[in-house]
């Protein structure tokens, strides 16, 4: 084996130490690259959109004239959509999680359902749109109304709600349940009065985060067929509707024709991002305060 001379050795060490320092800087820049883009995106959106946000924009109806257009219809549509999605996903999601964690015997069936849920989480949202279009809009003949959109969205975010609820239930300390059984409580009484209350913060956090996913999701609703037309404000789950992301989509498409539409899209993005920010902050607050 060749011996390195001291000089060679020194040079090598220098090179190694330099690459070490250099790569550290590169790695750091990579980690901050995403944040840099996020900042650029936000600055861009705010500078484009803040000018056209005012009271009449927030409360007005859609209009063919950009300067008179408002997004109240989309805000109400998002609200009605959540009125369907929230109860459906909470009910089915938490129910499924309770079954998987508390009742089902660990075995083939459970691991099958579990695999199935994680596969569903990986299905592209647009495929859920096709499912919704075929089953809810066409076969059940609901039409492109809030209920059809809400059920489609519910199926889309169910895997997330189920997994989050399962984790919340699993993290409840065993001794709480044991104490309840020891006092003679039945299984359902224990679940209802001991397990669920202490799992609630975790479940709520997961539910809110997945709701914010549903609020920002566009593709399934495009497939279901939300019209770009001027439609009256939705007043029930059987009304036709539009939502904030759909409005952003149509205005962005039209931006190549009329430049003002880009500003309207940016203003709507501000409203959407603020909504999501408030929801996510609530989720984080719940997790930190009660979790």
């Amino acid at each position, binding site marked *: 084996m060749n011996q390195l001379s001291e000089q060679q050795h020194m040079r090598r060490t220098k090179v190694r130490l330099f690459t070490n320092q250099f790569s550290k800087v590169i790695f750091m820049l990579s980690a901050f690259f995403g944040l840099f883009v996020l900042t650029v995106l936000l600055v861009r959106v705010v500078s484009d959109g803040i000018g056209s946000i005012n009271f009449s924009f927030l409360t007005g109806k859609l209009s063919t004239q950009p300067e008179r257009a408002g997004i109240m219809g989309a805000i109400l549509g998002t609200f009605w959509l959540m009125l369907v999605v929230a109860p459906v996903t909470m009910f089915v999601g938490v129910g499924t999680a309770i079954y998987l964690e508390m009742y089902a015997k660990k075995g083939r069936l459970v691991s099958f359902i579990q695999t199935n849920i994680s596969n569903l989480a990986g299905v*592209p949202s647009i495929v859920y749109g096709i499912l919704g*279009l075929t089953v809810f809009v066409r076969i059940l003949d609901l039409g492109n109304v809030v209920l059809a959109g809400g059920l489609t969205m519910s199926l889309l975010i169910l895997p997330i709600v189920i997994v989050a609820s399962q984790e919340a239930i699993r993290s409840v300390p065993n001794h709480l349940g044991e104490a309840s059984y020891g006092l003679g409580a039945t299984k359902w009484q224990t679940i209802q009065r001991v397990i669920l209350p202490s799992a609630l913060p975790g479940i709520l956090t997961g539910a809110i985060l997945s709701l914010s996913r549903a609020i920002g999701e566009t593709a399934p609703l495009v497939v279901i067929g939300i019209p770009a037309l001027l439609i009256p404000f939705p007043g029930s789950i059987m009304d036709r509707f539009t939502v904030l992301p759909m409005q952003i989509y149509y205005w962005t498409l039209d931006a190549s024709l009329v430049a003002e539409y880009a500003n309207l899209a940016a203003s709507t993005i501000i409203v959407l991002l603020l909504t999501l920010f408030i929801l996510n902050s609530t989720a984080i607050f719940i997790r930190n305060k009660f979790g």
Partner: protein
Amino acid sequence: MNGIAKKENASIREMIDQNQRGNLLRGKIERLIPIFLMLLASLSILTTIGIIWTLFSETFEFFRRVPFVDFFTGTVLKPLSQNPEFGVLPLLMGTVTSSLIAMMVAAPIGLMAAIYLSEYASPKVRKVVKPALELLAGVPTIVYGFFAFTFVTPLLREFIPGLQATNILSPGIVMGIMIIPMIASLSEDAMSSVPRSMREGAYGLGATKLEVTRRVVIPAALSGIVASFVLGISRAIGETMIVTIASGSTKNFTFDITQSMQTMTAYIVEVTGGDAATGSTVYYSLYAVAMTLFVFTLLMNLLARFVSKKFREEY
């Protein structure tokens, strides 16, 4: 005295009766609840069956009209012309190209970000940067679409003169940015779970931090890193709004990334948005494309799970 005792007896018996009635009801509830919950749990299986059944039955009808081979080898897609042609290759080209561009952005940056977070960053920095990256992941894709179309494309056109107003390059890059947090977070998890003692061993031999990362941590966490890449690809394949907005709807079969190319997802949007008459061949082509998309992403997800299970190094 006797009377009182009798009365007490009676009330105790009543209480026992009441209790038994209560127990009976409770027993019923206890038996019914699991059944009811099982029905709820089976809904997720029903969803899968629903997806597969919808896609299969309509795709089947499509292949009765358009030969299977023509669909998968055709390089021309003209669904609405007088003599419609249904070759899926232009769409596959668009999907593969945009996903590759996305991965060229997301894989190196995501991995290096993960290395920084796992190996270099102090706990304080990590505590700030990780949630901030998650913020990036929480931005709705429609917002990224707007960003690609109104900011990144015009910016790129300053440097690439031949770039079309709608092109596959810009949405590819933006999709990559969207996927960075996912790859960073999953790879970081994999690297953080490499035991400290392995690193200490390498440090003891005089290795620098970079050498430890390259020769010890990354090989040990490789299954998790590869799995995160595969999941990233799957995410890019299924992404819809960014490519729909920024890449347009030209069904180009080309390698030229400055041109507009349509992806499978964008085609689905175009067809459903155009109100294709139910029962027309165009309508059925929607399902054939969706089926292809579904199979692709499913395979990717299964591959990711296989890689992370099969090649995981257990410590």
